[in-house]
Every structure is written in structure tokens, then in C-alpha cells.
């Protein structure tokens, strides 16, 4: 793509999220979300391939519906209570519709069905932008609404379970990452009413871990488990570290991914929601299974076992590896800093 046009789209993405971050009026927030959608659709459809075009169409339709629901909820609240402030979404019907609209934006169950198909149709870079950057603006709105809702906890628990169960039958890496995203967002939303700073910490750590996974897959140029199994021949070093990245996504100590889950479970028990904490912790095991399957395929199927695919050409990586190195380090070794992070963000 023409570099000037590509930079316009990337600046548009930054602009949309920034507008939503700094808005205190619902209409401005809606405009930021719309600008985000408008900017990323051409990035998704830039390869004029049936898969990417279908993915961009599905993404466009779902995000436009969600934006329309957000606009409708804020307009209804303004009619009834006269308030356009983001904190002052007081009418219960508006609050519910707004929550559903934002849930559709981020892919929270039961409004998650578009996410695996859309992510499958994108190349890894655009998939990375969609999984990480596009979640920031809706979360900024969710964190500013003061919600007190059992529907939200229900959706969060459903997300963790559906994210776990849905990913079990997948062999395509992008679909696995989509279900992983659904599960992580379930964890984030679970604790939103009780401690929004924990949601922010979980979101940031999720972004680092997802960044490292996508960079890893981009470096190995793999999109399915079979070709992932041959990554040991392309670069043994990162193949040795990648099970740790995957287990960090699964939330095992002493890796970074354990920190948010630990803090969330602690917060839930403080709020006396022990059954919900147990159910969520058990559903994290489902996601852990497919992360383990990925690490098994990468590291425990070396020769002289039979190889799953024919050997691929091994070219030197031309892309900069600094993203992978920094994000890997952050997603493996940040746990000791967790108390400091919580103090800063609280």
C-alpha cells in the first residue's frame, strides 16, 4: 500500500482512540469509535482476497451495529435525564443497551461470534492491531461508566467459558488467539465493577502477551499448528522461550500472566463471590489446555519424531525483532513488579 495512505490510516487509528480517551461527552466518544472503525477497515481489506474482504465486511457490520447501539443508548439517556456526560449514564435501559453495544465492540460473550471469523480472515499484523489497539477505546468507556450489574458478571463468566471451550477444537492459530482474546476479556470485565484499575492492569498485560504471540507467529510465518511445529528449525532460541509465553497467556506462575488472574480472584473473594471465583478459575483450565497443546506442538515434537509438515524454506527474518524481544521480556518477567504496578495504577 502507498506509504502515505498507510500512514493516514494509522494516524486515523491513533486519532480515533485518542478522541475516545479524552471525551467526556458521549457523542464525541461515539465519533472516536467510528473513526477507529473507518480507519481499520481499509487496512483489513488491503489484500483484495476473498477471505480478507469477507472478514472486513463482517467486522464493519458488527462494529457499525455496536456504534449505533451506543448512539441510541446515549441519546435515550439524554432525552430522559438530560445528561450527556459519560459518568452520568443513569437510566437503567440506557445503561444496559450501552453495555451490550460496548460488549459487541470488544467481543464479549454472547456477542462474540464475529471475532474468530474476522480474526481468521486477517493477516497477522492487522489481526494484532484489531486484538490490541481496538480494545482500548471501548474499555476506556466501560471503565468510566459506573456499572452495578449482574448481567455484566454473567457475560464475563460466559466469556471465560466460551473462550475456553471454543478454542479447544481449533487448529488455526488466529482462531485460537480469538478465543484466547474472548477469555481474557471475560476476566477483565469480571472485575470491572469492583476495581477498574485491575481491569486496566489486566488489559495492559494482555496487550503485551498478545503482542509477543503475534510477533512470534509473524516471525515464524505460521498460521496453523502444523507449521508452528516446524519453528524449531527456523529459530531454536525463540522456540525455547515460546512455551513460556504461551503458559504466561494461560496464567501460570511465576510468569506475568498469573498476576492479573491472582489479583482478580483475590478481589472477587474480598467481595464474597467465592462461587464465581471458583467457576472462573476452573474455566481458565480450558484455555490452558489449548495453550499447552501449542507449546507441545512447538517443543515436544522434535525429530526423530515424524514431522507434521514438509520442511519450509528458512529465510532470514527481515522484520525488526525488537517488538518480539521487548514484549517477550515483559510477558515473562513482570510478575515481581506487580505490587509496584498496582500502586501506580490504583
Amino acid at each position: 500500500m502507498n506509504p502515505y495512505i498507510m500512514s493516514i490510516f494509522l494516524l486515523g487509528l491513533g486519532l480515533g482512540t485518542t478522541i475516545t480517551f479524552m471525551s467526556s461527552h458521549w457523542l464525541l466518544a461515539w465519533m472516536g469509535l467510528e473513526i477507529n472503525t473507518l480507519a481499520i477497515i481499509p487496512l483489513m481489506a488491503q489484500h483484495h482476497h476473498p477471505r480478507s474482504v469477507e472478514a472486513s465486511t463482517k467486522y464493519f457490520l458488527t462494529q457499525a451495529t455496536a456504534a449505533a447501539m451506543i448512539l441510541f443508548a446515549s441519546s435515550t439517556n439524554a432525552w430522559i435525564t438530560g445528561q450527556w456526560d459519560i459518568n452520568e449514564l443513569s437510566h437503567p435501559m440506557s445503561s444496559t443497551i450501552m453495555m451490550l453495544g460496548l460488549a459487541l465492540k470488544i467481543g464479549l460473550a454472547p456477542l462474540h461470534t464475529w471475532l474468530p471469523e474476522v480474526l481468521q480472515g486477517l493477516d497477522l499484523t492487522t489481526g494484532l492491531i484489531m486484538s490490541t489497539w481496538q480494545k482500548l477505546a471501548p474499555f476506556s468507556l466501560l471503565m468510566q461508566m459506573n456499572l452495578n450489574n449482574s448481567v455484566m458478571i454473567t457475560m464475563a463468566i460466559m466469556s471465560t467459558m466460551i473462550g475456553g471451550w471454543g478454542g479447544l477444537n481449533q487448529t488455526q492459530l488466529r482462531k485460537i488467539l480469538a478465543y484466547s482474546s474472548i477469555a481474557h476479556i471475560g476476566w477483565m470485565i469480571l472485575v470491572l465493577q469492583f476495581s477498574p484499575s485491575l481491569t486496566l492492569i489486566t488489559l495492559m498485560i494482555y496487550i503485551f502477551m498478545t503482542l509477543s504471540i503475534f510477533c512470534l507467529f509473524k516471525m515464524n510465518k505460521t498460521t496453523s499448528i502444523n507449521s508452528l511445529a516446524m519453528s524449531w528449525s527456523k529459530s531454536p532460541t525463540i522456540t525455547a522461550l515460546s512455551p513460556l509465553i504461551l503458559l504466561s497467556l494461560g496464567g501460570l506462575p511465576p510468569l506475568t500472566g498469573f498476576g492479573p488472574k491472582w489479583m482478580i480472584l483475590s478481589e472477587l473473594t474480598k467481595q464474597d463471590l467465592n462461587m464465581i471465583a471458583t467457576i472462573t478459575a476452573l474455566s481458565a483450565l480450558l484455555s490452558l489446555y489449548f495453550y499447552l497443546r501449542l507449546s507441545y506442538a512447538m517443543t515436544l515434537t522434535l525429530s526423530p519424531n515424524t514431522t507434521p509438515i514438509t520442511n519450509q524454506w528458512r529465510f532470514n527474518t527481515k522484520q525488526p525483532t525488537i517488538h518480539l524481544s521487548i514484549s517477550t521480556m515483559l510477558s515473562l518477567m513482570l510478575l515481581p513488579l506487580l505490587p509496584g504496578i498496582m500502586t501506580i495504577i490504583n
Partner: protein
Amino acid sequence: KGPKKVLVIVATTISLWVFVAKRKHLLNTLLRLEVLGYESYFILFFLTLAACEGALGLALLVSIVRSHGNDCFRKFRVLQC
């Protein structure tokens, strides 16, 4: 003001339902999306964004027809498991 408010809410709900129910052609879906954009008092401000979105939708429709050959939404199964 009471009956007018109810009418607007009913209109929005119906248009949202028609949008969500799977239609045979993508073009119908895009037309419904246009209707949803006319729902607020700040019509000039949002007409711009709604028009941009409509243009994007039409560009995607052209792209879909060029790559898939039709716009029958039910037949888009390239990405399903």
C-alpha cells in the same frame, strides 16, 4: 412529546431487528444501516459520519462482489470452521 418518543424508540428497534435478521442480500443490510443513522437531533453533525460509513459500506460491497461474485450473505462461508 410522549407518543413521539415511543414512536422513535419503536422505529429504532424495528430497524435494528431488520438489520440483525439475516437478509438475502448485503445491499438490504446496508440500506437498513442508513436508516439507523437518522435517529438523533444532531442530524447535520452525524449525517457526515453516517455518510462516510455508508460510503465505506458500499466500497466493501463492491469489493465483496468483485471477489466472491455475488452478495448473497448466506453463502459467505470461507472463514467458518
